[in-house]
């Protein structure tokens, strides 16, 4: 699905990366544990996390993941947004919980990584 559809489905807000909302993503992975994310071999992934700190952006950078959804209304800091912009990432937030966001996105066609 396109990232602009993702935002709609989870009643979300785009924090940065407006220019890339036509980007397609096929897989979702929900975790607050960065080393778990770092085991993933795919890159075509939406990272869904409640961990809103610079390490979540760094982890995406190292994993070549270019889209992150922060759940429970977590707001990224300026440093995080700068780093995300540098790597052309799309950052979104949703007021929903991780479970609810994952459920809605799966219903809309996003597949689990495994």
């Amino acid at each position, binding site marked *: 699905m396109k990232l602009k559809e993702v935002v709609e489905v989870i009643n979300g807000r785009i924090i940065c990366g407006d220019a890339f909302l036509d980007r397609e993503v096929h897989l979702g992975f929900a975790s*607050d*544990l*960065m*080393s*778990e994310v*770092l*085991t993933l071999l795919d890159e075509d992934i939406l990272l869904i*996390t409640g*961990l809103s*700190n*610079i*390490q*979540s952006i*760094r*982890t995406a*950078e*190292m*994993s*070549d993941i270019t889209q992150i959804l922060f759940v429970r209304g977590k707001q990224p800091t300026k*440093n995080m947004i700068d780093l995300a912009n540098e790597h052309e990432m799309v950052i979104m937030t949703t007021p929903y919980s991780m479970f609810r966001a994952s459920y809605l996105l799966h219903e809309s066609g996003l597949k689990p990584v495994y």
Partner: protein
Amino acid sequence: MNQSFSIPAGDFSHAGQAASEIKRLLKQLNIPPKVIKRVVVALYEAEVNVVAHSFGGSISCTITPEHIDIVVSDCGPGISDIELAMSEGYSTASSEVREMGFGAGMGLPNIKNNSDSLDISSSEQGTSIHMRVNFKEHTP
């Protein structure tokens, strides 16, 4: 080509800067993206371990046309049982470290899976991790 970095203990905001810099360098050298990912995942995990579990340390990278050699050393307190530390899920991470998104006990296994050779030595004076990743693309 040689590149060195120092890693202060406990400073999570800087963890990943070395991996980020090396990623930029390897891209310029046109190393395949899959290989770059192996290098930076292993390096980033090692960097985070120094920040999270040690009194601080340093990284030294040597790039040749065939491979990258990375040595990550810190000044203690060391890993008392390396075999145990290498097992998936084993972690002594503090609650501060867990709040930063680490402590799954997957870091050392990730380093092992992403390097072509790995040598870890450790004493109370410090831990030294030597990893090598070959640039020739991997057939998994």
